[in-house]
């Protein structure tokens, strides 16, 4: 281990010479940079299917994009009902680069939702949430919910027509909560009606409260990923259920950090084929992330972020439309009409859906990893996805008359 470490230190300091090398060694002895880099970069990952496993790091890069662009949006944005729209209108009209930053924040969010969705689908299909990674699935679901919250609170901040009516509908949903509904709505709005305190608190929730929960949970997500190693998918475990005890023991003899994943089902502690995280996986991750950031950049420059007319609470003929990632929920508002049905549509059905999503690792009792050997979970999940797409399609048809 010590020999390995000094060899690594030699490799890392190779580009430096003379004073640089001396300086690097001085810093390294005190900070432990080499050890840290070693821990971050040199770990074993599954070899096959690696492109599909780049979605998690892509999600991370996209969240970093949101944080960085968000910081610089604050250079002009004013969280006030009288100035929010004006400040963004200034950005759109007189600050071309600011408009691109705003576009990257919006399109970054859109792409982020798609990539998180794909990340969840691929994790689900490969059964990566199985023992011992149940808690990391749950942390992931919580992260997904936080990102949804960030998306919807972010949509309220421009205080244009779209933002105002989004905020109105979202804060009114809680009024259907039993017993405390009215109080909850007043707490969320900062008063009985939509007003200046509504914008400031959703601003605070968007830039501080939710990110303050998001960032440490991302840390936990990564720590848990490292603790058990990347699961990969069934292609990394071909034949493990048929192998003899001897074969398994021989395979386990060559186990590399961070494997073996413990406690695992027999055969699934270590993928049969391993590769280095750096550079093999990092290279694929970088290519995918670059492609996505390029897409976001192009959309920000070419399309940008729309800014409708300033909020008008007296609007007569404005048709509020939800952000696309909330279309299925919006459609359920139509399908659950009248007094007692509305809480069912806004709390009970989404609540059951979220609970099932969190409980996936405990509901899936199937032994295998291949999706075709897990029809008990794959078929219901397929129905849920088709249902959400169908609802979104109905909503689009209703709102935009396709």
């Amino acid at each position: 281990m010590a020999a390995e470490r000094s060899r690594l230190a030699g490799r890392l300091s190779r580009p430096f010479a003379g004073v640089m090398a001396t300086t690097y060694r001085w810093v390294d002895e005190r900070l432990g940079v080499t050890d840290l880099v070693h821990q971050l970069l040199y770990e074993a990952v599954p070899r096959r299917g690696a492109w599909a496993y780049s979605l998690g790091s892509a999600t991370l890069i996209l969240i970093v994009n949101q944080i960085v662009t968000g910081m610089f949006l604050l250079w002009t944005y004013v969280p006030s009902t009288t100035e929010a729209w004006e400040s963004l209108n200034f950005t759109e009209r007189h600050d071309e680069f600011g408009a691109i930053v705003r576009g990257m924040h919006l399109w970054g969010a859109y792409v982020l939702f798609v990539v998180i969705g794909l990340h969840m689908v691929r994790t689900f299909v490969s059964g990566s949430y199985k023992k011992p990674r149940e808690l990391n699935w749950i942390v992931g679901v919580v992260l997904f919910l936080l990102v949804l919250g960030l998306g919807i609170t972010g949509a309220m901040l421009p205080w244009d027509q779209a933002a105002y009516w989004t905020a109105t509908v979202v804060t009114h949903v809680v009024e259907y909560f039993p017993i405390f509904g009215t109080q909850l709505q007043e707490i969320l709005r900062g008063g009985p009606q939509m007003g200046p305190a509504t914008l400031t608190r959703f601003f605070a929730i968007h830039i501080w409260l939710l990110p303050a929960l998001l960032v440490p949970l991302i840390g936990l997500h990564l720590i848990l990923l490292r603790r058990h190693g990347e699961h990969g998918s069934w292609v990394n475990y071909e034949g493990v259920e048929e192998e003899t005890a001897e074969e398994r023991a021989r395979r386990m003899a060559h186990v590399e950090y961070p494997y073996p994943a413990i406690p695992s089902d027999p055969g699934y502690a270590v993928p049969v084929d391993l590769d280095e995280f750096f550079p093999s996986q990092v290279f694929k991750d970088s290519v995918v992330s670059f492609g996505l950031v390029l897409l976001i950049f192009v959309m920000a420059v070419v399309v940008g972020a729309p800014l409708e007319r300033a909020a008008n609470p007296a609007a007569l003929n404005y048709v509020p439309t939800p952000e696309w990632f909330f279309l299925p929920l919006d459609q359920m508002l139509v399908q659950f009409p009248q007094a007692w049905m509305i809480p069912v549509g806004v709390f009970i059905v989404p609540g059951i859906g979220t609970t099932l999503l969190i409980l996936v690792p405990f509901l899936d009792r199937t032994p295998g990893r291949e999706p075709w050997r897990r029809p008990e979970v794959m078929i219901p999940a397929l129905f849920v996805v088709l249902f959400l797409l169908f609802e979104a399609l109905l909503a689009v048809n209703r709102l935009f008359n396709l």
Partner: protein
Amino acid sequence: MPDQELAISQRRMSRRKFMTLGIQVTGAGIGLLIGAPIVGSILSPAFYKGRYPWVMVADIQHVPVGVPTAYVVLLDQGGDAWQVPPVPRTVYVVKLNLNGKVQLLTLSNVCTHMQCDVHWDINLNVFLCPCHGGLYSIDGTNIGGPPPQPLFRYQHKLVGTTLYVRNVLTEG
């Protein structure tokens, strides 16, 4: 002396327990002192009582019976949070003929389902909500779609033929 050592170690344990308890109590105290004002501040809007002055709408002498007519009024937020310019809101003035007697309604155009903006559709003769398809009759009664209750009404008063409303809603 073993007995003395035991006594000392027991005393040490109690000292240790005392400090553990102290850490827990002071920790809870810190949490409470920081948390209580925050929670109070978050909850305070739920207990706020506003003051709502009367605002002139218009002289409604010539508003026809049976045709909902929209007026935009600048309504005071009742001291909701800090002072901001009054918010424009739409008030539908509706005159209904009830057995020869004219009834005056001042309807809010805020849908009771999700609070989108409803408008009077002159072809269908209903109030229509574009969000989720809510329908209301001329007196604001919910007659179709998801709305759970009739349109709210602004409190109003007539001075001669001049209509005043204020930002207090009553159930229709």
